[in-house]
């Protein structure tokens, strides 16, 4: 078992050998990830610390292994329904809508958003930016290809958000999957269409040390199930950075069991799990 003291030693070693700083990561999850890395590499903590001091590639790989990359197409359909019927219509008349997916992982959230925007006739006005600390994930997001059989839930989620209207059960539209992605049951893949894949701008980004690296402010910032891996202090810092990166009337969208704690909460109005920037 990796203790908090072990974690502290490793974090110091990583800081010495790289620009990564895990000091303000959440203890329990961080320790769990390290336990898994030790097990997978059949090493003890001292061997791991020794190895990252002299093997840069290994260290980069370890950083990738520390980050968690769970995501789904239309994860939490209720959130996407709220977005569809209550939030996005407010932006429809704007000439452009700027969107940042912070911690985009393998990209399912980006494609969910693009599909929804297209259904609402808002695709062309959207400027979409996506970042992650893990370059392997950025490549996966760009590729937009996912396993089919393992992810049958994606299709259920798609039906709930795109085909059905939870506020009017008679309002059903038939949108074929092939409009947005091709399913190949032999190859066991779901492949997003090129017009979706070409839309977003991808960039490597570390929320611990990088601020808003884009020359723009945003109407929507997604950061779902990312800051759960940070402690309170780092959470507040990142939330404040998001706040200053939001346009007037912009929204921050967190995971279903994340919330803004402490003084930073005063900068937002909370409604249906969405955080709207307050006018100061």
């Amino acid at each position, binding site marked *: *078992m990796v203790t*908090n003291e072990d974690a502290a030693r490793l974090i110091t070693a990583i800081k010495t050998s790289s620009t990564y700083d895990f000091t303000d990561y*959440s*203890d*329990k*999850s961080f320790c*769990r*990830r390290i336990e898994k890395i030790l097990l997978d590499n059949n090493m003890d903590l001292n061997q791991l610390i020794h190895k990252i001091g002299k093997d840069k590639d290994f260290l980069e790989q370890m950083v990738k292994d520390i980050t*968690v990359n*769970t995501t789904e197409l239309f994860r939490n359909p*209720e959130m996407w329904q709220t977005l569809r019927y209550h939030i996005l219509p407010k932006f429809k008349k704007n000439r452009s809508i700027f969107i940042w997916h912070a911690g985009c992982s393998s990209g399912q959230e980006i494609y969910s958003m693009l599909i929804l925007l297209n259904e609402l006739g808002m695709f062309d006005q959207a400027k979409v930016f996506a970042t992650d600390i893990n370059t392997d994930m950025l490549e996966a997001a760009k590729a937009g290809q996912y396993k089919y059989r393992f992810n049958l*839930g994606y299709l*259920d989620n798609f039906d709930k958000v795109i085909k059905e209207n939870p506020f009017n059960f008679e309002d059903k539209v038939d949108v074929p999957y092939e409009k947005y992605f091709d399913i190949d049951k032999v190859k066991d893949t779901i492949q997003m269409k090129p017009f979706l894949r070409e839309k977003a701008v991808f960039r490597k980004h570390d929320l611990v040390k990088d601020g808003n690296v884009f020359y723009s402010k945003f109407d929507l910032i997604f950061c779902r*199930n990312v*800051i*759960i*891996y940070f*402690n*309170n202090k780092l*959470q507040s810092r990142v939330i404040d950075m998001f706040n200053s990166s939001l346009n007037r009337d912009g929204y921050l969208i967190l*995971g*279903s*069991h*994340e*919330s803004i*704690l402490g003084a930073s909460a005063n900068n937002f109005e909370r409604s249906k799990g969405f955080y709207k920037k307050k006018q100061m």
Partner: protein
Amino acid sequence: MNDYKAIMIGGSAGSFQVVSRIIAALPANYPLPILMCLHRLKHIRSGFVEALSIKSKLPIIEPHDKEPLKAGRIYLAPANYHMYIELGNRFSLSTEDVVNHSRPSIDLSFFSASYNFKKKLVGIILSGANKDGALGLKSVTDNGGLTIVQDPKECQVPTMTTASMNATKVDYVFSTKQIIDFLLKLA
């Protein structure tokens, strides 16, 4: 009695009725936090809290990340998240890979709670169809806490309790009624 700080309950298939009975028996002024990690079907995310709340005199909460833990509340691990207790008595959530085919994983919740509360934790394993929770209950023993399993003879599915009894020497094998009496005596 030892001055326990928290009670953690793990359960899976066949545990819903047992949990309902336990919850219904606790008074509104129950002084300890109850932490529950129960497996549920992945796509049934809503309705579970409401169903449990009907009979409960205590508030039932699916905690948010970094929420401080308070006495007199029943906390339920949210669907599709692992639930940890951090030092300083705050929850933290994680979406990392499933463990024992489960998220939430009972083992992971017990590991973090026993590390945090040491001998001040009561760990209870109920009916369930897999062995998630067995190593977790062992960690409660290893940290000096008190362990209880529902009597396998009474369990709808005894896999989880039997695996727990194989993994560690449990303090008590109790019927649901005995578990309730024990919890009431702690108050």
